């Protein structure tokens, strides 16, 4: 039986989303598909699967990504769902907990981790530019005192708040990259 849960996670909350999906799996609800606002879970033995969420560049169906997914499949990690965004996609993968008892690590070396964090960084930057442009556009319409000025004001405010949230995540990502680079000076 499929249990549908409605929940909203923003794009910068992918790690938090992963923790929640793993908690659900630990309670016997394993994710089978999702979209931006809803998650479908199947009832399974508690803790049967471990989940990992990932940002990937490009479109889900790009050959580069499909090759990567078939490699993941070879090592027991299956893509259960994805959400496509402009220029990037969020991937939801799972593996049997008996194969990955400590959770799924997709990147184990520092260079791969840094490269992955840069993917997040550039996407956050793209979102900030997009949201700020949207905010400024609505603000300029608001300044013209047209009939929908309240709507323009609200949308502008929302865009700036989203841009700020992305900026906070971008700064956190930069701090992570900086720490990884320092680590790389000493360790592989």
């Amino acid at each position, binding site marked *: 039986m499929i249990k549908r849960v409605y929940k909203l996670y923003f794009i910068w909350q992918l790690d938090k989303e992963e923790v929640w999906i793993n908690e659900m799996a630990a309670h016997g609800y394993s994710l089978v598909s999702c979209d931006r606002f809803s998650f479908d879970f199947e009832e399974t033995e508690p803790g049967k699967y471990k989940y990992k969420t990932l940002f990937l560049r490009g479109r889900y169906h790009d050959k580069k990504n499909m090759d*990567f997914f078939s*490699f993941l499949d*070879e*090592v027991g*990690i299956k893509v259960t769902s994805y959400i496509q965004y402009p220029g990037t996609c969020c991937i939801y993968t799972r593996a049997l907990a008996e194969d990955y008892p400590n959770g*799924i690590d*997709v990147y184990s070396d520092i*260079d791969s981790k840094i490269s992955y964090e840069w993917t997040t960084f550039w996407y956050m930057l793209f979102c900030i530019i997009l949201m700020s442009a949207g905010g400024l556009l609505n603000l300029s319409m608001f300044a013209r005192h047209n009939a929908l000025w309240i709507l323009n004001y609200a949308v502008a405010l929302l865009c700036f708040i989203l841009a700020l949230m992305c900026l906070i995540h971008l700064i956190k990502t930069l701090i992570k990259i900086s720490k990884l680079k320092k680590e790389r000076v000493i360790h592989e």
Partner: protein
Amino acid sequence: MPQQALTEAVYYILLSLQNPLHGYGIIQNVSELSNGRIKLAAGTLYGALNTLVDKGWIDALPENPLSRKKEYVITSSGTEILKEEIARLTELVDNGKRLMEGK
């Protein structure tokens, strides 16, 4: 120009590919060779395999129609690189022992 040090992951991948192996086999083999110390993650292994194929240090074998799993094997240039790395590591260890143990 002297060869640059290989990463542990690349060193163990090359070492594992003396005989053809697929991705999961490499992960298991590296873990066994390092007594469980090195757990290669799938994304890291995937990136390393693609780079090694591009460099010509390993070959991707033609896909077996009975299995979807792609196998890889070390090439002669990969073997040369591995020998050079073993010589470099031996020098490191010898120097370390000589200075630390006064040999």
